[in-house]
């Protein structure tokens, strides 16, 4: 894929099916961008968790609300953003799922998994409200042109 900024915007319905759809879309894009199978899987999982978060917590499963996903490339990164139409939240207020007292909680691991699977992860409250999850994965060297590896 060319090392110039490209942007894909997708509007998803607040439906359970959107979780699978978003995952598949990002995995296909990541595959076309030259990521390894393992990274494609991780990115798919991260986006899956992001859309689950938007569906369940951001949009509270309210059918009329939308989930906005964008995928962008710059010179050395693929950036995925997932924006809901909820109230937003502070990452620091989310309980640590690895804390002993939280291990047996049945929810609360999605954000942790997004951070674990991506190279960078952050949460913003969008100007119009809503939580925007920003997930970044560095492009493989062969694609970005970094390092000594030759393009494939």
């Amino acid at each position, binding site marked *: 894929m060319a090392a110039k900024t490209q942007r894909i915007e997708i509007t998803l319905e607040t439906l*359970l099916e959107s979780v699978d759809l978003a995952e598949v879309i990002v995995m296909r894009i990541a595959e076309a961008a030259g990521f390894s199978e393992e990274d494609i899987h991780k990115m798919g999982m991260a986006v*899956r968790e992001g859309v*689950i978060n938007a569906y369940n917590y951001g949009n509270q499963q309210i059918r009329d609300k939308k989930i906005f996903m964008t995928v962008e490339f710059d010179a050395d990164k693929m950036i995925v953003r997932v924006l809901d139409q909820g109230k937003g939240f502070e990452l620091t207020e989310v309980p640590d*799922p690895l804390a002993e007292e939280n291990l047996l909680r*049945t*929810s609360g*691991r999605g954000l942790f*998994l997004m951070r*674990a699977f991506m190279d960078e992860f952050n949460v913003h409250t969008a100007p119009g409200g809503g939580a925007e999850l920003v997930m970044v994965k560095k492009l493989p060297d062969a694609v970005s042109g970094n390092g000594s590896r030759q393009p494939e």
Partner: protein
Amino acid sequence: MALQGTCREIEDIAIIDFSGKITLGEGSSTLRRTIRDLIDKGHRKIVLNLYDVDYIDSSGIGELVSGYTTVRNVEGEMKLLHLTKRVHDLLQITRLFTVFDVQSDEESALKSFR
């Protein structure tokens, strides 16, 4: 593939051979329903064979935790068998590998019940 489970019994131990994905929606619901049904039928020794489950998301992990707690609350035991690498790694990074009783082969799993 949607999660499917087949139950077999060895003495008083129920082994569920699962295949498919344990994800938000149908997969998680199937897992929840399966464990609930086993408990309702009086089973207290349960093995979840995840040999053919290569995908689980946070909802699926939540259902495993819920199942573990539910079985424990009726003084039963639930064990996980044959984790694939991806499921194993997920349980490892979420620190749940130390919570669940994970067995690598069926014979060991059967012998491990109190």
